[in-house]
């Protein structure tokens, strides 16, 4: 379990990272916290020609709350965002979800954007970004663009990032006044990837609901103003539409049932905590 050979490029600014990505394209892998890339390197599932370490780029290290949304740079570790004093005020959904990301010993190194880049369908951060209508800021030598989370996660660990692009940051809309947010997850053990994870945002009577761990990507549905049987029907239809599959840890039927029951619970919780 040792990685194959690669060049190591320690970028000191974004331009260097862009240059390396332009040079190596799909033969490069960006290394930030390394919590998912490193095992894949050691298992030789990935064999890049170059690994580009972006953790020494100072401009990627900040959380910027100055604008209309929160900009979390590619160098921000999950533990840093979790410890950010304004998190509960600004991003209550992430405050609820981040403790479910791995363990303290991996959150200390793993980055927010790294989880977005890896796009594991069971991961909590992509799910929250989708639910919150966040966008991903991509840049390359050729320019800069923002992609909505809904368009970014395109498949199993597959994203809309072009091979020469760097995820520079994610932009997450701040908490809306009067909205309620809730997150729940079930994994086999504490810290495991979710079998089912649910996020709900209730604004007025409007219900927005997202599910991770079931389909190939996190999945979102705007239920509108539903309650009672209509909500149950909406959850049931969504559960079926996710095309859940059996695997070692859970059956498809189990996953659908968790979407229905945990989904209802998380929506009710979000309702209760409307500000």
């Amino acid at each position, binding site marked *: 379990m040792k990685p194959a050979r690669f060049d190591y490029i320690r970028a000191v600014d974004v331009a260097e990272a862009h240059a390396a990505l332009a040079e190596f394209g799909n033969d490069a892998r960006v290394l930030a916290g390394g919590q998912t890339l490193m*095992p*894949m390197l050691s298992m030789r599932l*990935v064999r890049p020609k170059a690994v580009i370490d972006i953790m020494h780029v100072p401009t990627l290290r900040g959380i910027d709350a100055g604008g209309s949304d929160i900009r979390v740079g590619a160098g921000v570790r999950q533990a840093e965002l979790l410890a950010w004093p304004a998190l509960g005020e600004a991003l209550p959904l992430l405050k609820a979800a981040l403790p479910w990301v791995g363990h303290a010993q991996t959150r200390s190194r793993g980055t927010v954007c790294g989880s977005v880049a*890896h796009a594991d369908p069971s991961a909590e951060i992509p799910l929250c970004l989708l639910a919150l209508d966040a966008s991903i800021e991509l840049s390359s030598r050729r320019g800069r663009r923002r992609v909505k989370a809904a368009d970014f996660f395109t*498949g*199993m660990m597959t994203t809309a990032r072009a091979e020469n692009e760097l995820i520079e940051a994610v932009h997450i809309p701040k908490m809306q006044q009067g909205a309620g947010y809730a997150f729940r997850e079930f994994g086999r053990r504490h810290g495991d990837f979710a079998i089912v994870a649910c996020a709900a945002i209730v604004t007025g009577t409007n219900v927005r609901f997202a599910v991770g761990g079931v389909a190939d990507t996190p999945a979102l549905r705007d239920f509108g103003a539903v309650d009672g049987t209509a909500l149950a029907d909406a959850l049931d239809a969504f559960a079926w539409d996710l095309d859940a599959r059996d695997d070692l840890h859970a059956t498809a039927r*189990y996953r659908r049932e968790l979407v229905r029951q945990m989904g209802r619970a998380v929506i009710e919780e979000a309702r209760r905590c409307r500000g």
Partner: protein
Amino acid sequence: MSKAVSVPSAQWCGQSVERVEDAALLTGRGRFIDDLGVKAGTLHAAILRSPHAHARIAAIRVQAARMLPGVAAVLTGAEVTELSASLVVGVKAPIECWPIAVDRVRYVGEPVAVVVASSRYVAEDALDLIEVDYETLPVVVDPVAALDPTAPVLHEGLKSNLASERLFRYGDPEKAFAEAAHRVSVTIRYPRNSCTPMETYGIVAEYDAAEDAYDVLANFMGPFSLHAVMARALKVPGNRFRLRTPPDSGGSFGVKQGVFPYIVLMGVAARATGRPVKWIEDRLEHLTASVSATNRVTTLDAAVDADGCVRALAWDQIEDVGAHIRAPEPATLYRMHGNLTGAYDIRHVSVRNRVVLTNKTPTGLNRGFGGPQVYYALERLMQRIAVELKLDPVEVIRRNLIPSGSFPYRTATGALLDSGDYVHAFETALRDGGFAELRERRTKARAEGRIYGIGLTAVVEPSVSNMGYITTVLSPEERRKAGPKNGAQATATVTLDPLGGVSVHVASVPQGQGHRTVLAQIVADELGLKPSDIRVVAELDTARDAWSIASGNYSSRFAAATGGAAKLAAEKIKAKLARMAASQLNVAADEIEFSGGRVCARGNPDNAIPFARLAATSHWSPGLVPEENQALRETVFWSPPELTPPTKDDEINSSLCHGFIFDFCGVEIDPVIGAVRIDKYITMHDCGRILHPGMVAGQVTGGFAHAVGAALYEEYAYAEDGSFLTGTFADYLVPTAMEVPEPVILHVETPSPFTPLGTKGVGEGNCMSTPVCIANAVADALGIASIDLPLTPAKIAGHIHGAESAPPPTRPAPVGGKGRTLRGAGEAQVNVPPETVWRMLLDPKTLEAIIPGAHGVTKISDTHFRAEVTLSVGPVTGRYKADIKLSDLHEPRAVTLTGVVTGALGNARGAGRVRLTAIETGTKVVYDYDAEIGGKVASIGGRLLDGAAKVVIKQFFAALVRQTGGKAEKRGFFGRLFGKGA
């Protein structure tokens, strides 16, 4: 019969003294095998392993790997068979067992080639350059299916997969069943699991050509009966196979017995290269292919009286040892043979034991060794008796326990239960453990609509295995020919140095259990010293130390056997010193006392000499000491007379000591998630005399944690095609501090009359009692009869979640199974006639154009193609080899494509049926497919491979349609599967 147990007068034993091992381990100065330096020039090995569960090896091309700078050698089955012999197999059957695949692989992870290079990194680089052509064979993973006459046969020498079958009969079970008021039956399928020590296997092997001798350092744990197996395989006499163990070993729980085939393999590699070779197993190798506990299918019937007393048992056990019968298997099946009646007074027993081979990793030692499998059946049965006869489960256990005052007790199948008072321990546990309160808790919880259940288990925990029990697998006639096997030689040496210091050498090969501390306590008590005065050496060197085939760290034998041998060795040297002192102090030897570092006359502490001075006498002044009193070094070999060979009637005292455990627990089940929460767990132990309460507690909580894992989380799971599904610690779920509660531990002590210290084993009991105790509680909570481990939330929720709503009408039927099956269908219309489509499908050029990422399609025959494919899925770009065969050809209407794809991520095999129908505008193409996917690294690779397969299938048909100028049906499979207008 009761033998007085002599208890040393001093008091170190019985105290939880701090461990001598800990200071080094806590400061990062442990000496584990990979912490020790190696000689300059030592090479490092890496192993290429089979991705297939069953395949013929058509060719292995190693030239490119051999040419890689830094590579010293590449060994395959051909080289290994030339330099070694097959491992001896423990049943009378014409089969071989090699440490590497020879012409054929029989399980995923079986070694196929060994690369030896300048570093592990380079060795793994070379593995990438080895090309193997496999011709896959049909696979059997289920032990019952393996017995089917149509099942693929793993070893032709056997003609079937049945490696051994034996029938046993004790008492008159037929009569008991005929007369009994009730017959109660359970069938269980005990899963595979492993205690997965945190340190993996490690070996440094050297070969001395001048002496034709091997010197191997390995974190092997015994039993050293396997020394003979290894020496024979390496084709040297035992005295030319020196096996050493490092001072520290990172846990074993039986598992490090399984390093032994690799010792042979690395020995061969050292011989082939003429250099020392080091191999440290990695975690993926360990999980996939080190060793596993056996999975077993058991049907157990009881003949039961109206009052719940069990009169007879009928066992039918099908033991799955995996792809090879690797020594000492089938020991897992026979270790418990004397204990098949558990803690109960049952005089009539019939047994049918079958050992079968399947395409899975070979099995071996694992904490509990046979106990979890046996007690899961027996204790589920006891609960079912209570349920079916509408009796209180407490009462059913109470009525069947071996009565007080009947020890030593000979079981129907031959075990001699040394001591105990099961009824007393049982009643004490119910009282002190708060069983009445637990029942109230259940009543209250149920009244509140919560799902709550109580489980109970009574278990006899055997320890100190009889080396002869395994011969019960042979018929009495075969045993007579082979000569009797029995006993369990334990050994210890006590040495006095010229300054009067005391050293102890043992062959117990500790793996973290604190043997050095306890031996220091035992010998200090004997000699009137402090534990810190005693230095204990526990690393073993077969060239220098006293050892026997029974040496090692298994069957919970340390406290009873090795501890006892150390006491006897200390007594022996003490007796000599006492005689020496007697002459110096002018008193009789039996009036000499050892205490406080001094040796004195009883009743006259002033008439004394320092221990160290007395102890040094035989070094400095041997002339003063008569020859029979020379006290320098005493070695004791101790084998208890109770460990006799199997009788002609197949009665076997399979173990020397038998502890007693009675557990009960309360569990609550989450009504949505189905997760089990252990609310209360009480475990009562009678493990004889306790030498170190802290360590005993550690054995109980540690065994309990393993059992919680086995009950709720852990399974070495295989798909139907034999691919291994739990190859990382993200898939094989080991419980953490969040999952393991603290059990309440209770003790009673009835010393064993058969061991020098009155001690018994304690390390394995909870692995036997706890899984079934939790299962009984879950069965009670859910009111269900049949329940198999692990008790996953999804499995449990299946009993809670009611009927599901009907799926929307357009949905394809849900797919079942724990493998990764992809199934789908679709259709498309193209603008050319069926004949054209047909020709394209059979043309390599078209295939190259439509197989995604294909670069080089070779036509082997008209209906057989090979292709190289490069695919990027998510973060993983990999090269794959596709082997595609066409069959059921009905030109130009229908064809079946069968493909096997292998590559970096793992392998997939699938079949697709394509049907062509002429329509006005050209051809309607209808297809459906089925694919089984086996990821190399299940958690990541398997899921990525799912994605890859979807992409490939999608692109294949899209390209076919494009190539023929057509258009996919909008509402077809892609639309459903991908949702986003694929």
